């Protein structure tokens, strides 16, 4: 009898530890793989109160000591954490009754763990590159940035396949590390549309009043307040939108640009029209996405653009900048409005169009939701990922290592 595939995944974050997009990605991917007859063992960093080992819907989750002594800097911590993770993962893999067939690493944050286990167990390594240092920083300017970039290059070199979540990222990663085309695979990121089904817009009337007056439309931004996310473009577009429509701008997230941004808002005399909420919890975020009249993603660099998918799943019309993965998710005038990147006029025009033309907004909303169900369903993504594992193992079975 053929036994199910046995996969070990490495991720520096897994719920309840949530820092960025990798945590929900690995959570939903591993759960959906389990439903598709793939046994997944996730090895991740520990989190206060979370158990060292638990089984979540068939996924084995191991949380290992993430190195808690003081570290000289973040990058050094990453390598020290990997030393611990690698030791623990080696012990876990060696004790399993069935051997691991494939190791799957997510980003450079677990690079040395993935590379090490590949060689000691002689099994293929897959890596999903969610982002790159050269993309995040728009170039390599410091020794730390170069070190991370070279670690990413090494990781993609050691990997049997490099998975990216958008065609844009495939092209970007191919360029950044000089990889051959046949080493790359595109599997989109998924979104869980079920979480938005719990509440309708009517139930949220009181909730909405906490953020905006009844006559104000809600323009929602969700993301870190950092340069690459283009939040400053949205802030600069606010007066142009307000000239044509009455709206409240709700800015969710935090980041190093926060003070600078609120100073700009103050200098424009628009403090009563802009609300900086900081970080909000999961439930309130879902509700906000549900009540938003438009969700804006003005990024300058965006490998994928999960926040646009979430808005589409919440049936909120989206206005995005035509860049990176965002440009692929959204089809202009069909599933959303695509603005010229780094262009306040274009962004303001799109927001006004959605806020003032109800027919257009409804058209975008309905098309977007249909695409979500067709393309970005986790079950379909898990099947694609399983297909990749099987293809790699087919090649492996003919290799010198088998």
């Amino acid at each position, binding site marked *: 009898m053929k036994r199910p595939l046995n996969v070990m995944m490495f991720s520096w974050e897994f719920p309840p530890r949530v820092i960025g997009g990798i945590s929900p990605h690995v959570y939903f991917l591993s759960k959906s793989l389990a439903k598709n007859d793939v046994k997944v063992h996730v090895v991740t960093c520990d989190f206060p109160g979370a158990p060292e080992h638990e089984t979540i819907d068939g996924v084995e989750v191991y949380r290992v000591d993430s190195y808690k002594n003081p570290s000289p800097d973040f990058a050094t911590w990453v*390598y020290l954490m990997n030393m611990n993770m690698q030791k623990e993962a080696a012990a876990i893999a060696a004790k399993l009754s069935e051997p691991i067939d494939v190791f799957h690493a997510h980003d450079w944050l677990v690079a040395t763990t993935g590379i090490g286990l590949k060689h000691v167990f002689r099994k293929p390594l897959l890596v999903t590159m969610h982002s790159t240092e050269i993309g995040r920083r728009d170039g390599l300017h410091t020794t730390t940035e170069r070190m991370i970039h*070279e670690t990413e290059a090494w990781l993609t070199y050691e990997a049997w396949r490099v998975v990216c979540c958008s065609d844009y990222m495939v092209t970007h990663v191919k360029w950044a590390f000089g990889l051959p085309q046949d080493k790359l695979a595109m599997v989109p990121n998924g979104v869980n549309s079920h979480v938005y089904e719990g509440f309708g817009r009517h139930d949220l009337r009181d909730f909405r009043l906490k953020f905006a007056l009844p006559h104000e439309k809600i323009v929602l931004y969700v993301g870190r307040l950092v340069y690459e996310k283009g939040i400053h473009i949205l802030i600069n577009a606010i007066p142009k939108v307000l000239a044509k429509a009455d709206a409240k701008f709700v800015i969710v997230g935090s980041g190093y640009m926060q003070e600078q941004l609120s100073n700009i808002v103050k200098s424009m005399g628009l403090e009563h029209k802009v609300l900086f909420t900081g970080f909000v919890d999961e439930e309130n975020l879902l509700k906000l996405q549900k009540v938003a009249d438009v969700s804006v993603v003005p990024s300058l660099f965006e490998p994928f653009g999960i926040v646009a998918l979430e808005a589409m799943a919440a049936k909120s019309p989206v206005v995005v900048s035509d860049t990176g993965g965002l440009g692929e998710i959204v089809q202009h005038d069909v599933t959303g409005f695509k603005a010229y990147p780094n262009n306040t006029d274009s962004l303001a025009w799109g927001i006004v169009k959605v806020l003032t033309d109800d027919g257009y907004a409804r058209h975008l909303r309905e098309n977007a939701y249909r695409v979500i169900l067709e393309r970005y369903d986790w079950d379909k993504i898990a099947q694609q990922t399983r297909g990749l594992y099987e293809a790699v193992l087919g090649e492996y079975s003919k290799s010198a290592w088998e």
Partner: protein
Amino acid sequence: MRAVLFSWEYPPRIVGKLAEYVSILATDLVKSSVDTHIVTYHESLTGPSEEPSGAKVIRVTNPVRSHVSLITWVLTLNQEVERAAANVYYQNQKNVNVVDVYDWHFIAAAVTLKHALDIPFVYSVDSLEDHRSPGANAPFNMAIRGIEWLGFFEAAAVTAKSDWMKNEIMRVYNVPNEKITVLSPSASTWVKDVVHVYNSASGVAVK
């Protein structure tokens, strides 16, 4: 008996006294019928080679060229050391009896090999961070001490070159007396004593 020695210096790369020590030891181990492999670092002379004595040397370099500190350099280099040692294991019918690690640099690789492939290791102490940087408690020094501690904790056996060093290891890291063997390079029984440590270490079950 098949032993893999990890040392960050080995001729022609000579930093201190360790390179010569490991070189002489390897030659004598081969004479004592130990299949001896040395995994070491060299910037350019990478790959496998064989000494006139019959000792096999694998030199690896760091795939990551830019580094913020010695620690990131060491930890990334460990992956290549680990890969080289795993290759020795797989090329010899999955049989390596013991890994002998000199100082803290390649402890991370030895620890993973122990847990993954059931290969016990000996931690051979040349010097301690406490002596190299007395009293320093910056995160940089703490990280190195943490790695030394991991080495003492995970090792099947610890060796020191003098009674003084043995006492220091017990004082700084609370390693039990019976875990540490003093191997004096000037003793006539030196190589025999080393082989004895290897034999008893490889008898220690990992799991």
